[in-house]
């Protein structure tokens, strides 16, 4: 298939995700200015980071003075899944040059990864397809963040509208989307209990590390032990 045809298919595949990303980007921008970020700072985060879950978590943790280490740590944990996605794509993108690989990684998102994996079942992933499917989403995300931040600066106190609770509601919805039955339930209960306890006793931002360690540890313990291979 010619590169323009592959690129066209990439655009077609990513279109629903682009439409879905718009209201979420608007919400991110509006909540960002509500937390005290300037329009430019909210937009800059979407330009440089463009990872929705990590960005919303950063806003929830955002205070002044800015807890830089806690923000970097929370971002690392939430985005660690990218390592597995990249590792899975590596053998399917062997035709990419070094520069193309570095660029391909730059625009890796959950959505582009899922679509590329589906395509890889049928045919090779070409650079034309990958950059079409992957690089469009950040454009929508950045544009809707700026627009949402600009609109949000007219809204006033976000707490009056319950917008501060939007993070909690959004994260509950995201966790529901990740749900894999018993293993997730054990993780969620352990993390919630440890995080709430750490928040009440030690204070923010330690609740993130406490909840993460407890949730991951609980999943480790609950999983069946590996059978040793002879």
């Amino acid at each position, binding site marked *: 298939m010619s590169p323009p045809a592959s690129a066209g298919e990439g655009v077609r595949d990513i279109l629903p995700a682009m439409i879905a990303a718009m209201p979420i980007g608007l919400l991110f921008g509006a909540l960002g200015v509500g937390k005290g970020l300037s329009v430019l700072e909210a937009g800059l985060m979407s330009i440089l980071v463009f990872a929705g879950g990590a960005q919303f978590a950063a806003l929830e943790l955002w205070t002044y003075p800015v807890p830089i280490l806690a923000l970097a740590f929370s971002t690392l944990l939430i985005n660690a899944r990218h390592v597995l996605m990249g590792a*899975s794509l590596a053998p399917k993108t062997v035709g990419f040059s070094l520069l193309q690989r570095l660029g391909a*990684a730059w625009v890796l998102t959950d959505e582009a990864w899922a679509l590329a994996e589906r395509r890889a079942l049928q045919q090779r992933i070409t650079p034309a397809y990958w950059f079409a499917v992957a690089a469009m989403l950040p454009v929508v995300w950045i544009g809707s963040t700026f627009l949402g931040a600009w609109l949000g600066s007219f809204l006033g106190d976000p707490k009056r509208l319950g917008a501060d609770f939007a993070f909690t509601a959004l994260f509950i919805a995201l966790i529901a989307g990740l749900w894999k039955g018993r293993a997730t339930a054990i993780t969620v209960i352990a993390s919630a209990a440890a995080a709430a306890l750490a*928040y009440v006793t030690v204070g923010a931002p330690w609740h993130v590390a406490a909840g993460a360690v407890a949730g991951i540890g609980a999943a480790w313990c609950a999983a069946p032990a590996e059978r040793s291979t002879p």
Partner: protein
Amino acid sequence: MSVDPAALVAIVAMAVVTYLTRVTGFFIGDRLALRGRAKAAFDAIPPAVLVAVIAPTALATGWPETVAAVVTIIAATRLPLLATVAVGVLSVVALRSLT
């Protein structure tokens, strides 16, 4: 339109960490094959972190937030993402008005 130096450092730190997670897999490739408990622990990272971030609001802020979180959980089992967020926000506004 301004950028606070500390905010800029935080955003750049987040960007660097994120790019490292994105690029690492492309170069370690097949050498990373998680199985059993290691795989379960890795899969647990996103829900564990997301829950930890919201636990103070959901469990240790006040009863309106806790009840609204329960309502949102119920909504999340049957509604799409943005509808779930709308239900959560509207219920917290209604419950806070009762206090």
